[in-house]
């Protein structure tokens, strides 16, 4: 009986022309990420990463084999790379292959068994890389057809495609005589640094299996538990079917888990979210709140609705929720669009936890500003006063906040970049809903005003952020609801 008009009013407000226009503006704002990426990024998907080069020599058939894999930094194959192998000896032999859709180039050069110096040329889109490999005579294999890695790393890190802030492990390898590997397995072990190993400390028995390697190239997402030291290391070992280690690599833990410093896309995104979206969302929330409640209340239009079978609490809550829901959807869509655009430009999605944190932050900003405007509409007497105060509030909280902090820092005897300024900034950002995203960025990346900090030293922790968010959501809302229900 009561819920139906409540839901009905939510639907009506969300689908109102003004709210839809504001939502469209928010979505259009997300397109501003495109020029930002062109400024801050250099089309990373075209960057050719040093390919691991595998080699084996078929002595009986007198054929030199080179197997290369070309990828971008995410490990995605790059086709169309011209791969040339030049054997120089008494006679020169050259062979050129263009990588296939799997990014693989198989080069087989028939040449008499002899000593050759080897040069590799890689060319793509006008970019040329030249690499000199060890001379063929210097390469000794224990078994016929055994594969050796001559250049690059068989076990390497690549940027996670779904989380640009962490790395995955890529394995590029082949079986003897260049066949697709089978019965190979990748194992890992997290160790404290320095790690002293004597004897058989890195065997299948005392390592954790990450997965089987059944293809030339495979990517693994190693589970990295939290609570480990940044100085810890992770060892990866590739074992063959006999349990013998054929390749190994080790990486610092910080390389694999989400780094403190964001990579380019995340950096662009954080700038975009905290400045542009952090500016637009409060403004849209203010206009939306004025349109959906403040104006109607102060011009008594709301009474024409209040006279219907709806409670005061129901009407107030429905208007608040519908405004917040509309702009939450708009914010989430804007963040999604930004993520998709960054992915299409840069090749990787943003870290999911960062995306969720940003959306949560935007919800807090929307709810806080909506609550404040709704609340003000019960304290002020005219639409002009409400608009004026709202605009002043927005300008002070969004544009003059930095200046206020600067002046305060001066008063407290601090200088720009000093610890006093940083602490003042944090405290002031906590009491400003428009800066909530900035606080989240400090927490996520441990930097403030470009200065690396230990965020917990400045009071920026998960509990303090959650508490701050709850206060900004609940305090204006509860006060507004009290006034809406108890006062005319």
């Amino acid at each position, binding site marked *: 009986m009561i819920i139906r008009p409540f839901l*009905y009013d939510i639907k009506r407000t969300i689908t109102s022309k003004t709210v839809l226009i504001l939502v469209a503006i928010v979505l259009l704002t997300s397109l501003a990420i495109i020029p930002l990426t062109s400024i801050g990024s250099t089309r990373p998907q075209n960057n050719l990463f040093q390919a691991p080069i595998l080699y084996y020599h078929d002595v009986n058939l007198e054929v030199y084999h080179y197997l290369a894999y070309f990828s971008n930094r995410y490990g995605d194959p790059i086709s169309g790379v011209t791969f040339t192998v030049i054997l120089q000896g008494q006679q020169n032999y050259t062979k050129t292959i263009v990588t296939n859709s799997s990014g693989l180039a198989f080069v087989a050069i028939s040449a008499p068994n002899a000593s050759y110096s080897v040069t590799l040329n890689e060319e793509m889109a006008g970019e040329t890389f030249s690499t000199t490999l060890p001379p063929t005579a210097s390469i000794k294999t224990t078994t016929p057809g055994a594969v050796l890695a001559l250049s690059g790393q068989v076990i390497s890190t690549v940027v996670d495609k779904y989380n640009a802030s962490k790395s995955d492990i890529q394995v590029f390898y082949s079986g003897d005589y260049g066949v697709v590997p089978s019965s190979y397995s990748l194992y890992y072990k997290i160790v404290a640094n320095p790690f002293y190993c004597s004897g058989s400390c890195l065997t299948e028995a005392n390592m954790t299996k990450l997965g089987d390697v059944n293809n030339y190239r495979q990517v693994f997402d190693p589970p990295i538990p939290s609570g480990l030291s940044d100085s810890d290391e992770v060892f990866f070992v590739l074992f063959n079917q006999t349990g013998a280690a054929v390749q190994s690599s080790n990486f610092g833990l910080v390389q694999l888990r989400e780094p403190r410093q964001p990579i380019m896309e995340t950096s662009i995104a954080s700038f975009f979210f905290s400045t542009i979206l952090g500016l637009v969302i409060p403004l849209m929330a203010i206009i939306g709140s004025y349109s959906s409640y403040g104006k109607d209340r102060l011009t*008594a239009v709301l009474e*024409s609705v209040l*006279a*219907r*079978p709806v*409670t005061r609490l129901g009407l107030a809550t429905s208007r608040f929720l519908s405004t917040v829901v509309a702009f939450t959807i708009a914010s989430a869509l804007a963040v999604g669009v930004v993520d998709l655009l960054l992915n299409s430009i840069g090749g990787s999605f943003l870290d999911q936890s960062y995306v969720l944190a940003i959306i949560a932050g935007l919800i807090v900003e929307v709810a806080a500003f909506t609550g404040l405007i709704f609340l003000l509409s019960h304290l002020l007497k005219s639409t002009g006063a409400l608009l004026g105060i709202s605009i002043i509030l927005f300008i002070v909280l969004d544009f003059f906040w930095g200046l206020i902090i600067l002046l305060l820092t001066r008063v407290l005897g601090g200088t720009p970049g000093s610890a006093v300024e940083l602490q003042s900034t944090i405290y002031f950002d906590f009491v400003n809903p428009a800066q909530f995203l900035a606080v989240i960025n400090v927490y996520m990346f441990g930097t403030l005003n470009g200065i690396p900090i230990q965020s917990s030293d400045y009071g920026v922790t998960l509990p303090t952020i959650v508490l701050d968010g709850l206060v900004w959501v609940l305090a204006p809302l509860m006060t507004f609801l009290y006034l809406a229900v108890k*006062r005319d």
Partner: protein
Amino acid sequence: MRQATKIFSSKQGPAINSVSFDVRNGEVVGFVGLNGAGKTTTIRIAVGVSLPTSGTVLIDGHDITSEKAVASKNIGWVPEIPNFEPNAKAWTLMRYLAGFYGIDRTEAKNRSKDLLASVGLSGFENRKIRTFSQGMKKRFSLAVSLLSDPPNFLFDEVLNGLDPEGIHFFRELMHGQKRVNKAILLSSHILTEIENIADRIVFIHRGRVIKTVTREELGAYEGLKGVLRVILQNASDAAISYLRTVGENLQVQGTEIVLSEFHGDSSQVNAELVKKGIPVREIKFEKTGLEEYFFELIKSADAGK
């Protein structure tokens, strides 16, 4: 309404003070008071758009404050100055408001169309409310109040701003609603309208109900008071002497004789004059009872204060 009091500011006195009255089914109750007496405040509290500082309002047994949603379903309200979303089209707004009563879309569409036509707004469905005149807004407000066919109506100065056709329409509507046992509270400063339609009249002055009278009680009072205008072919002495016997304060203006305090039945006076061979061109009785009654009530209320 029981002991309803509204205090807007502690610096001022209460806007209404312990106001109590009933409106029963099939009854039209007139609500009469000077400007600022508290009529609109009382009605706004009764409708639920304003909160009483104390006291209760029951709509068909449901408290308008604590059971707002249920109580509001039983009310049709036409405010003195209807205030709807100015940029909404009549048609759209009507269907939006119908949604609060749980009226489904098809039914809302049909009912809106019928009601807009019935209040004379046919052809204006797609016009924005801001383009409506005050009278049109009032008609629209009436159409909205009829959406859920509620058993109770509150009309606040509903005749203000209406053209004669609108006044006639409202009058007929109220008679119609009364016939089907609806309860109607009608506030108006056009006292003749109240006199003509109200079964009871509640007088409010300075926020207090100072008197509630039935039509019969008022009629008895009216029997003593009134203005009789008689236009004769010739204002003869015989006619004047006779008329002096049926009233006081007689004034002769040519062939027109005015008795400003008439005590009797105008049809009997007419018959008597004819019987006496005095040709009567026109005889007209103007009731001033309610107005005078009202002013007397105010005077005594102020004196009592």
